């Protein structure tokens, strides 16, 4: 695998820098060690030096679902808590995710985003192709990753951001716990307990892009041990503009209502959550193919998505050091869009158990079963064969955290074992080492393997991608991309190293990684004689999906949080990314990565609260250019003003993308460089926008 790595001058530089870092780290650790081992004072006893007000301000290193505390996690983890979420001024989840160091967020149009880390945002990969297919997203334990195209339909996923407890992001593979498709990272969206959202709250708002929105929430209590909340959100978003300044026709309306409840027993908690949503949007489709002349045109379609889910979770503490959790959910997603309509039903059962069976071991194990039942209407443009499929997914995992030297060195090893109907058994192990040189710093190393399993469309899909010519019988000939049964999983082997330091109100986090990819998807060249399209007077030539590419990606992710005073905080995040892929078999170049992603990305946020009831927050974003896409670098500013003018009412004003009238975050230019004209969703320019909202609490 490593044999194919191309060492360039940049690479040497990278190595040099790594070496420098290593030397400093050793020096640092040596200093720290000296201090630690010669001081007799128990650092823990210093907690009594904190006043009660300071204690109330301390955030404890809490529990990630299965992974221990954030500071002690041997992975590139970052958490955005509810205060940071509100103060980011974000209206949608992808917008909030821009605050997380190392995440690559690009908005395509009013309703679509791609969110990934460490590359592979998947933009422009055929129909429905705005998917970051190597990034898993979960909301309260429910997968938002669609099995149809591999990725997340952000236009259908929305929440009341004020009811989120936090968003946890792991960059890099998390497959040994979370399973297939957690290749480049996972996002965990975690809602607040109903207990923390008691009372009524109503929000009204309007703005230049987020034209009007209303949120409501009511939280109450039933019978002394059950807390609940009911909520609803309605949002109408105005169209953005295209490159020439005309309306991009990408209206977006979403409506959702839901509930959450928790019942507390002596040592267990029973939680239920459910939601129903309805999304309507206008989509500008480019190069839509049809069997009648002119064979190829642009068209606006009115798409809709709707769905519902119901989830139950039981967490039980069997003893102080052991707990188990049992979760079951049902999710239905319906979609109606140009050339593709249908539904996907998902039934999921998940169990995990955490215990300390031996003094130095923490063992987490679990298993799950998922059943996916889908059904689609086919059209000449897009069809699935068979049109309905039932898929089973079995999984099991085990992880052992072994304290080699308690409180100093911990080795975490584990693996996920999955069986899916497309590729059979997938084994995804990881090995992680955490070193605690002293109380304020952590260093970690990790090696892991992850896979992305083929999506339904990569296995069974038939997509017309291009009009070729009209043949001698005056019959149009198209190119059809066909899913391949021999298409197997994409593989990643990742090496990562990280270092964290927390002192004097400042937290540093540095991660460096090297990812080796194999069996990546590439498309074959067109071959074979034209065949007849069933049912219509047209012919096609075939193009297949292959596991034809491989390569590497590497980078550094830095973040710093500096609490200068209780009222002023600075957050800085910088990431560097580079990748090179090459096609090892006959195929096109559309997977090529270099120049498709911003190499440098930097975000600086200033969070200032001049008075107790007043907040002024600024966020500067710098995103490097993407030469292959023809997207210039952009530098912009978001602002958030908050004023609690009454004990029960507050006013918020948010400005986004303030430094220029509009800018592009991605483009479809790349597609034009490939000898391929795909049907795709148009990319819009993101406009400057301002919104205001007023919030009442009872």
């Amino acid at each position: 695998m490593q044999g194919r790595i191309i060492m360039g001058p940049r690479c040497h530089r990278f190595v040099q820098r790594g070496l420098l870092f290593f030397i400093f780290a050793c020096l640092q650790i040596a200093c720290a060690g000296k201090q630690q081992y010669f001081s007799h004072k128990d650092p823990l006893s210093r907690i009594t030096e904190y006043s009660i007000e300071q204690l109330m301000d301390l955030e404890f290193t809490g529990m990630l679902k299965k992974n221990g505390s954030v500071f002690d996690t041997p992975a590139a983890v970052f958490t955005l808590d509810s205060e940071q979420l509100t103060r980011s001024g974000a209206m949608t989840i992808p917008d909030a995710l821009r605050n997380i160091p190392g995440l690559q967020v690009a908005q395509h149009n009013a309703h679509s985003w791609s969110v990934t880390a460490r590359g592979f945002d998947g933009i422009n990969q055929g129909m429905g192709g705005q998917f970051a297919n190597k990034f898993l997203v979960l909301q309260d334990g429910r997968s938002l990753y669609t099995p149809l195209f591999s990725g997340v339909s952000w236009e259908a996923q929305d929440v009341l951001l004020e009811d989120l407890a936090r968003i946890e992001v792991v960059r890099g593979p998390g497959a040994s716990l979370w399973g297939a498709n957690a290749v480049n990272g996972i996002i965990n969206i975690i809602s607040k307990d109903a207990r923390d959202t008691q009372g009524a709250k109503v929000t009204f708002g309007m703005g230049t892009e987020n034209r009007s929105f209303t949120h409501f929430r009511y939280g109450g209590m039933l019978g002394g041990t059950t807390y609940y909340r009911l909520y609803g959100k309605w949002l109408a978003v105005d169209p953005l503009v295209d490159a020439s300044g005309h309306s991009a026709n990408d209206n977006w309306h979403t409506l959702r209502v839901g509930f959450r409840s928790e019942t507390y027993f002596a040592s267990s908690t029973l939680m239920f959550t459910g939601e129903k949503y309805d999304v309507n949007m206008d989509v500008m489709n480019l190069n839509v193919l049809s069997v009648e002349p002119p064979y190829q045109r642009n068209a606006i379609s009115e798409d809709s998505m709707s769905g519902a889910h119901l989830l139950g979770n039981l967490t039980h503490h069997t003893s102080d050091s052991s707990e188990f959790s049992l979760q079951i959910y049902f999710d239905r997603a319906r979609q109606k869009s140009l050339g593709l309509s249908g539904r996907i039903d998902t039934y999921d059962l998940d169990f995990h158990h955490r215990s300390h069976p031996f003094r130095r071991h923490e063992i987490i194990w679990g298993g799950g079963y998922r059943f996916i039942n889908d059904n689609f209407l086919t059209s000449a443009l897009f069809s699935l064969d068979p049109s309905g499929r039932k898929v089973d997914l079995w999984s099991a995992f085990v992880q052992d955290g072994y304290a080699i030297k308690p409180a100093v060195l911990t080795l975490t090893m584990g693996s996920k074992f999955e069986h899916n109907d497309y590729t059979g058994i997938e084994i995804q192990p990881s090995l992680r080492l955490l070193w605690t040189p002293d109380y304020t710093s952590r260093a970690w190393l990790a090696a892991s393997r992850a896979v992305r399993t083929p999506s339904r469309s990569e296995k069974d899909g038939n997509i017309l991608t291009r009009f070729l010519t009209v043949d001698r019988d005056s019959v149009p000939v198209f190119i059809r991309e066909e899913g391949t049964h021999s298409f197997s999983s994409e593989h990643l082997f990742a090496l990562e190293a990280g270092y964290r330091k927390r002192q004097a109100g400042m937290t540093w986090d540095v991660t460096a990684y090297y990812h080796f990819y194999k069996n990546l998807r590439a498309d074959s060249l067109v071959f074979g004689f034209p065949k007849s399209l069933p049912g219509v007077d047209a012919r096609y030539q075939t193009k297949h999906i292959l596991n034809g590419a491989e390569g590497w990606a590497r980078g550094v992710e830095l973040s710093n949080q500096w609490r200068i005073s209780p009222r002023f905080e600075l957050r800085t995040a910088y990431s560097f990314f580079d990748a090179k892929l090459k096609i090892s078999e006959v195929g096109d170049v559309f997977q090529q990565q270099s120049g498709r992603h911003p190499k440098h990305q930097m975000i600086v946020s200033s969070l200032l609260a001049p008075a107790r009831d007043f907040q002024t927050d600024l966020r500067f974003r710098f995103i490097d250019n993407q030469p292959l896409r023809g997207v210039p670098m952009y530098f912009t500013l978001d602002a958030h003003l908050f004023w609690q003018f009454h004990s029960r009412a507050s006013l918020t004003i948010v400005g986004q993308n303030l430094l220029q009238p509009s800018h592009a975050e991605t483009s479809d230019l790349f597609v034009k460089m490939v000898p391929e004209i795909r049907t795709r969703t148009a990319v819009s320019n993101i406009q400057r926008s301002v919104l205001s909202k007023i919030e009442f609490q009872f």
Partner: protein
Amino acid sequence: MYLNRIIQVFKDAILVAILVSSVFGQGSVSDLPFSEYEIKAGFLYNFCLFVDWPAEAFAADSTILRIGILGTDRFKTKLKRVVAGKTIRNKKLVVSTYRSIDEVHNCHVLFISRSETKRLRYILGKIGTASILTIGESHNFVESGGMIELFNKNRKVRFNINQIAARQAGLRISARLLNLAENLKLSYTNGK
């Protein structure tokens, strides 16, 4: 291409700043990462500072202020480590653990673990109006007649106070602490 250069320089500057600060910034350790129960141990210590016990709560020549933990001890040894060698009003802090309410003797602060939620009313009834500061984590602790209920909100520790229960036990809670409470229960009677 000036931009690239600037970025390059900037990148190097950040890297060097991190490394240098991590080497030389060793001395002060004022913002340590603490776990949930380490922070809660700090709260327990602070509560002792802000509560006045009636004189009869201490034996005539006693120099000990005893913190008891009833039920599953989630502090493990942390509370002991935190209070080791500490004194409050010339009284040495001592930690004891109890499996049942009947074992509790000569105790000034009692932390009632979540494992006792089912038996909460029974336990608080047994304590009655004895001068023991009761602290708990059960979601209905204050409603059941406990004095201070600790709970977590966005990974920070918060508390509710039942002032009536404290008064009935002859304890005086300082105004500073009362002001910081998320909820102040003045309308509940001591659980029977």
